[in-house]
């Protein structure tokens, strides 16, 4: 293991000062479940680490005037088991409970799950692909193994967002609280993630010196009807092949409003706007689910080994609409 300077700030001011001073040399560390893989494989060698789990202000779940606020270093287990989240935002509780394994959820944090790097194995192996600053995508080559990769929004890089909680938070219309020296900025969850067309190196809009400190979930979608499903090769300790998070407001059998988001099909959580528009004002039924499923995959461009994601995504949309 190479020498790494370890900083353990206990308050936001110190954490931001360190992040600002160290810039790209300062690796933000929370649960470490993304980090330690990189280090173990010797594919990243940060000069310094800023451990954020000592900052109590960034932990826990509290009620705010318009919903709840979850600290970024709150563990996924706490979120899964929290009565407030379970009762009002069951979608997030379910999604957090599907992350990896119980051991990982015990130390993995919400912030870490949201800002984790992609799991494309060419990239994780340390190859100089586009995402690593190179000039080629190994996954989207004639010999590339791309079963887990994107079917939407690929721009040279075909990696996908691996986060389970991200689609749920986009569906819940959450807001990311990002701290930086001199203030903070609030970013809608939908705009927090960035695709390769805009930024082929990073997965989020966070700049060096900025730290995700909390996630706010408004009351807008509290107690709506939720549906979350994650399809992976294993039931535990695996990343999604496709996941779906849906928040649907139903009145008298009619869908008043809906937010439906797919994970693992694009580099960002994919909001299914066309499906939402198609179901709004319609009677929730099997027939409706059948009708709108194919809309979800319009424009999909599959790779050599991930054609299966199209029918899988359609079926997940059907299930979400059916409820």
């Amino acid at each position, binding site marked *: 293991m190479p020498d790494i300077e370890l900083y353990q700030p206990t308050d936001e001011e110190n954490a931001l000062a360190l992040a600002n001073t160290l810039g790209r040399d300062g690796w933000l560390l929370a649960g470490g479940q993304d980090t330690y893989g990189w280090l173990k494989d010797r594919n990243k060698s940060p000069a310094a680490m800023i451990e954020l789990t000592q900052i109590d202000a960034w932990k826990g779940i509290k009620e705010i005037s318009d919903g709840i606020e979850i600290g970024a270093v709150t563990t996924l287990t706490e979120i899964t088991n929290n009565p407030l989240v379970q009762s009002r935002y069951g979608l997030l509780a379910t999604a957090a409970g599907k992350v990896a394994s119980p051991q990982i959820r015990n130390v993995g944090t919400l912030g870490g799950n949201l800002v984790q790097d992609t799991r494309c194995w060419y990239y994780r192996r340390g190859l100089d692909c586009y995402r690593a600053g190179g000039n080629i995508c190994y996954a989207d080559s*004639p010999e590339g193994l791309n079963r887990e990769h994107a079917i939407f929004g690929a721009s040279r890089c075909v990696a996908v967002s691996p986060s389970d909680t991200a689609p749920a938070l986009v569906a819940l219309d959450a807001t990311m609280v990002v701290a930086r020296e001199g203030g903070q900025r609030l970013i809608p969850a939908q705009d927090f993630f960035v695709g390769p067309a*805009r930024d082929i190196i990073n997965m989020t809009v966070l700049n060096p010196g900025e730290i995700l400190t909390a996630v706010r979930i408004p009351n807008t979608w509290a107690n709506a009807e939720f549906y979350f499903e994650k399809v992976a090769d294993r039931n535990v300790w695996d990343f999604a092949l496709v996941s779906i998070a849906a928040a649907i407001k139903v009145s008298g059998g009619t869908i008043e409003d809906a937010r439906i988001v797919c994970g693992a099909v694009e580099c960002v959580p994919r909001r299914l706007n066309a499906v939402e528009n198609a179901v709004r004002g319609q009677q929730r039924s099997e027939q409706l689910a059948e009708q709108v499923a194919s809309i979800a995959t319009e424009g999909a461009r599959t790779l050599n080994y991930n054609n299966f994601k199209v029918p899988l995504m359609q079926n997940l949309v059907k299930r979400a609409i059916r409820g």
Partner: protein
Amino acid sequence: MGNGIVRYKRDVWGEEVILGVSWDLLWVVAVAVLILLAAHAILMAALANKKMDKPSAEGRRVLRHEIIDRLFHWVMAASIIVLILTGIAPIVGLRIAWLNIHWISGLVLTFIIIFHIIRSLFWQDFKSMILGPRDFGEPFDSAKKPGKYTFEQKGMHWAVTVVVLAVIITGILLFMQIDTPFWDRTNSMPEDQLGLMFLLHGLSTLALVALATTHIYFALRPEKIFYTRSMISGWISEDEMTANHDTSRWSPKEAD
């Protein structure tokens, strides 16, 4: 990995291959060009009192550039500026969806260059742009006046020709490596060849940045501004023509 000009990487087999040009050179080029142009501006300002009076823009007007050539020039200028800006955007960390704008501008540039080559070969006086031995003596002998184009203009034209053709050829080969509405990429170019294409594209881009900056600077110089005006309005005055050109070698028609 790099040696200052070229960046290298390990390919999928662990072999060292070219990755592309070192973008630190962009700042080197920018600073070098700005220093040279600033030095030129200071020198010209110091010599200003020795210059003759500026020729008048009044009086009879002669046609220097037809409307179609002016349109070509400005479309080319716009596409090159867009190409440079969109190419530099990810290097300086701007988060914009630059690639589509980049290749569309590249296609525009390619088509108008093809148009220009055909037009210059068959409909324009191609010989007026050829650099001959006489042209090389022109800067050192004030008695020698040029035909339609000065030595500097011809030099700039041919330098831009070489660089733009290099940008276009390497750009088209790189264009074939991305998805477009016309085809799905195959991503099958060997990594060493791909790196070479990126290197040549990058080097020609750097040269283009230097040439474009220099061109804009001279286009805005007071003693050259009438050429820029002619690229907008099409004409120069007879006085400007006789002061700067040999009318036995260039006899334009009267402007409308």
